[in-house]
């Protein structure tokens, strides 16, 4: 475009700051979550079912030497913790599609608010739900017999890693939602990714018991990094590659967040 041929204003009207914008987006999502409590409630019940189900089905695996002396439930709880936030995060984009369909997204985009505030606001609500889920997993795991020798510090490490993993998958889900604008596309893609991400990792099975090719794939799987870091935090014995894994998760979280923010532009280009 060339410069406009009409007198232009030199100054822009005032606007709210980024923190207020983000806070209000989060506030809207949280009110919505509380009013539709069945959604968050179901997401809290789901990990309970997983712990009971997988804990019982794979209980006898705990006697194998590859699981050490702690038993399968100690091995399983960090895996279920990460699996819970992975599944929950992968569905986050459905909220974005609801916003597109209801017209709320267009209201955001015609308001002078930062695109990053739109993403961050939704992410914070999702992370709050993930935190509640994570605490439920740790509590149910404890009741099921798991113990956390890593102490409070170790639990905080596990929760921090779960937050990083949730950020990655929430942001990817939001990005796919904004670009596809289709619930079916988002759900199909989520299902395509979350199951392989879970079973091609050490979520339920140690690397030593995996076929060679699965073990090779699992080493580069962010889900494995998160599970091993979480397991290290709860057990008090961190993996040798711990710092690399943390670094990898941080880099992926930053990239996913950037992708989600940029996807708003892709959404607008299609309008």
């Amino acid at each position, binding site marked *: *475009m*060339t*410069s*406009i*041929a*009409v*007198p*232009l*204003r030199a*100054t*822009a*009207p*005032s*606007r*709210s700051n980024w923190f*207020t*914008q983000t*806070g*209000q*987006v989060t*506030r*809207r999502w949280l*009110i*919505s979550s509380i*009013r*539709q409590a069945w959604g968050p409630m179901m997401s809290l019940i789901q990990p309970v079912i997983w712990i009971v189900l997988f804990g019982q089905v794979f209980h006898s695996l705990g006697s194998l030497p590859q699981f050490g002396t702690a038993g399968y439930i100690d091995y399983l709880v960090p895996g279920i913790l990460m699996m819970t936030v992975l599944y929950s995060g992968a569905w986050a984009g459905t909220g974005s599609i609801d916003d597109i*369909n*209801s*017209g*709320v997204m*267009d*209201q955001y*985009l*015609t*308001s*002078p*608010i930062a695109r990053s505030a739109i993403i961050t606001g939704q992410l914070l609500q999702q992370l709050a739900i993930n935190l509640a889920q994570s605490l439920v997993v740790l509590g149910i795991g404890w009741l099921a017999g798991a113990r956390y020798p890593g102490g409070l510090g170790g639990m905080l490490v596990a929760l921090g890693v779960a937050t990083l993993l949730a950020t990655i998958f929430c942001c990817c889900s939001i990005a796919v939602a904004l670009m596809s604008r289709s619930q079916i596309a988002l759900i199909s893609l989520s299902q395509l990714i979350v199951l392989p991400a879970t079973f091609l990792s050490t979520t339920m099975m140690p690397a030593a018991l995996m076929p060679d090719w699965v073990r090779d794939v699992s080493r580069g799987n962010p889900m494995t990094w998160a599970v091993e870091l979480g397991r290290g935090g709860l057990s008090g014995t961190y993996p040798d590659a711990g710092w690399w894994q943390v670094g990898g998760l941080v880099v992926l979280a930053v990239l996913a967040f950037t992708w989600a923010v940029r996807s708003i532009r892709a959404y*607008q*280009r299609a*309008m």
Partner: protein
Amino acid sequence: MPENAIVAHDLVKVYRGRGRRPEVRALDGLSLTVPAGRVFGLLGPNGAGKSTTTKILTTLSHATSGEAAVDGHDVRTAPDAVRAAIGYVSQGAGTDPILTADENLQIVARMRGIAPREGRARAMQLLEEFGLAEASRRAVSTFSGGMRRRLDVAAALVHRPRVLFLDEPTTGLDPEARAAMWAEIRRLSGEEALTVILTTHYMEEADRLADELLLVNRGRAIVQGTPEELKAALHGDSLRVSLIEPDPAAVRAAVARVAGLRDLVVEASGVDGVLAARTDDASAAVGAVIAALDAAGIRFGQVAASHPTLDDVYLHFVGHTFGDATAPAVTEGVAA
């Protein structure tokens, strides 16, 4: 505010084709000037380019080429300044159905930089003005279509914008809710001195509300003026005949010898059709057209003669009746 609230030059919007989907040229060099403080109607059939124009002017979408300024701010280089100056009511809703009306307005207020106490007061003021005070603590999902539309407009006014975009604001509303919305739009342009950009495909709505109109068709501006100016430019009366299973060529041949018909158009769409024309002597033309159609064995229904309407303005400038721009009917006719 500048003398003109909006100035746009030569806007082009091309949606690239993908696979079997062909490229779509939604705007094809559209220009417009909107004087400040008036209700400006963008009138055209579905697919004419009205909503695309609105999306570019509200910064939702970018023009492929061309330039536009809203309230003195370039939409491309100063989008946040444009956003701060406008309110936008889209074709769908714009409020969260799970939240209450009051919560929706307060959140918009805070996002727009209004202090909490002032935001609460502004929300209450708007809810009272729009007749929603009693329902302020109800979830928006329980609102009727008319209530929800009024809330959408209230939400767009929270920050006291200088330019308000209303994209098809009465689509889907019952007659009572539509009348209430019309009264509200009139009030806004009068008491609040807002510039209102109203996109609509309802002729009556444009005629009643717009101080000035731009007729849009196939992504181009056709003609601009007040409804009165546009209608006055067409001299004489309008004649319309509803046709049953018409053959446009046969209808044209039948009325070819009727004296004094201008802007003759014959359209067929499925089993229905219409003959539209203008004439200086409606009483003589009605009888002559009926006789000519009877003589040719052409079946027809209602015959009506009236002073020119915006329908006739559209017919005169575009060459066919007001329908879906993306699905034109079979048309035969030549403007005289």
